[in-house]
């Protein structure tokens, strides 16, 4: 219910803006490429699920921090309570510099500085919001877990008690309450995303030297244990 009114308002604004505004709309196809940088954490399109971040179908017109089952930062929840609605303008500002709009957002992303790229991305996102009951077959169906990790590794059940001990090495930098000050929060991640990310560091596909070193000496079981522990940490 709540969702309807702002959506209408947003569109009213869109149309009121007239031709000049519509010319600024980006190229949704190029936006699909640009979405590649979001895919590690977000899904969109048919069957999209919440991952590290919320699924993005119907993002236009949605109140900030309102998707059930997603672990949001306190900042994002507060912004939602204060009435932040995702519109073209608010998303544009957020994507340009996430922390300028929501200071302690868990979205550890530097932002898209290029105006054209951002417009393309917004056009792509909007295609999944215009009419949420008729989401186009996602082509590409954007998923957050593109990887070639052995399913046997993903199937390992981690020991959360061992994970808790191992995690004490992580919490020197990654805060256990999930805060995000220059170092991303790692609590509440879906197990698969956590395991995939850690193996990507271990295999030096992800670039960060500290994380490559830390993940480099963790066994498959240890990574599973950490994933099991951090998944349920509030």
């Amino acid at each position, binding site marked *: 219910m709540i969702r309807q009114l702002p959506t209408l308002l947003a569109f009213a604004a869109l149309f009121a803006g007239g031709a000049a505004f519509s010319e600024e709309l980006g190229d949704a196809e190029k936006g699909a490429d640009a979405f590649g940088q979001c895919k590690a954490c977000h899904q969109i399109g048919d069957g999209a699920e919440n991952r590290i971040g919320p699924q993005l179908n119907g993002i236009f017109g949605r109140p900030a921090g309102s998707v059930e089952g997603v672990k949001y930062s306190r900042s994002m929840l507060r912004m939602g309570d204060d009435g932040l609605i995702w519109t073209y303008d608010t998303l544009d500002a957020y994507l340009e510099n996430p922390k300028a709009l929501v200071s302690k957002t868990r979205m550890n992303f530097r932002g898209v500085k290029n105006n054209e790229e951002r417009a393309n991305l917004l056009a792509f996102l909007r295609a999944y919001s215009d009419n949420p009951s008729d989401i186009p077959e996602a082509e590409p169906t954007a998923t957050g877990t593109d990887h070639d990790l052995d399913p046997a590794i993903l199937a390992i059940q981690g020991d959360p*008690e*061992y994970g*808790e*001990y*191992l995690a*004490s*090495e992580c*919490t*020197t*930098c*990654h*805060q*256990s*309450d999930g*805060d*995000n*000050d*220059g*170092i991303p929060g790692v609590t509440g991640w879906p197990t698969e995303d956590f395991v995939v990310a850690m193996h990507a560091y271990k295999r030096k596909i992800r670039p960060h*030297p*500290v994380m*490559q*070193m*830390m993940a*480099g*000496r963790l066994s498959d079981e240890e990574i599973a244990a950490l994933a099991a522990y951090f998944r349920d940490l509030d």
Partner: protein
Amino acid sequence: MTINRRGFIGTGAAAAATLSAPVVFAAGHGKPRVVVVGGGAGGATAARYIAKDSKGEIDVTLIEPTRMYYTCFFSNLYLGGFKEMDDLGHSYGTLAAGGVNVVHDWAVGVDRDAKTVALAGGGSLPYDKLILSPGIDFVDGAVEGWDLSAQNAMPHAYKGGSQTELLKAQIAAMPAGGTFAMVAPPNPYRCPPGPYERVSMVAHYLKANNPTAKIIVADPKPKFSKQALFQEGWADHYDGMVDWIGEDFGGGDVSVDPSAMTVTIDGEETKVDVCNVIPAMKAGRIAELAGVTDGNWAPVNAADMSTKADADVHVLGDASQQGDMPKSGFSANSQAKVCANAVRGALTGSKVFPAKFSNTCWSLIATNDGVKVGATYEATVEKIAKVDGFISATGESADLRKATYEESEGWYAGITSDMFG
């Protein structure tokens, strides 16, 4: 060092008990007792983890004289104007609320036969396991002409808090074109990149406020941590301002005269405006009083940080002699978790997992120009041994250096929250 402050905070019955006597949770309840001396990166972390993970099965007492802990790590950023002193101060209230009995007093002796720790305020605390994490003290006579009585004229500023503030005030009061001198310490010492990050931060301040000032560093070492990165940064940001005199050029032949404010390096006397003397270091005195040191440091077993001298006395952080890890807050925090896990296992039978250690040291060279060095370590029979490591490269992009600095700020928030709750 004088004993000038003591007091107690605690929760519930513990607080009431301290009103009558400083002996907390005396015998009778049957719970195992851990006493931790020193509330820094090693001690606060160990106390917090043992209390948190034992869920009330172990009585944990932390002895720390100061009510407000000012971190030594990031204190150089205060000198450079990037942090306020308030940003570096942390209280023990959350630890107390988390079940740690925090006693603000000095530990002045350890009776290892009776298994008690004597307090300056009188009385003593019994322990089943004792964890000493006292940080550093300075070796007497390490720099000719300097002793602790000269620390106001020539501050060391190598323990966080008032010394850091004093040094900053002296730098701010330098005359135009004045000279800042540093006497750097010999190995091993707390925070290997620390003196050179400090040179960078002082240079940063002077470049903006006193651009014709000079910096001289007398160093007894032929080389130092992150040397290529610092020297590249000094050339890029502070061209001509920093004169580093290493061992090869007589940097180890130093004496100072705190009343005349002169420094003599390799026979050449120089009048200076500020002189930061960082003497050779040794384990905090309580480790020596406990009889667990050998020379300047306390040798420990890598698997659980217990001392070679006494299996029920553990030493963490700067004071320990453990092998390959640098003396740093990160190292102490890492060692504390291994120790906490082992101590808890020994006292309650909880599962003891294998020791793993890691360290990363970030340094700031100029605005948004951060660098880092780090390594992972494992426990061997002889020592904590290095497994793998990395270091920032020279010539990195400005974006990467900025990200590294932002990461260091994230680490500061992370480790202080890991230490103090």
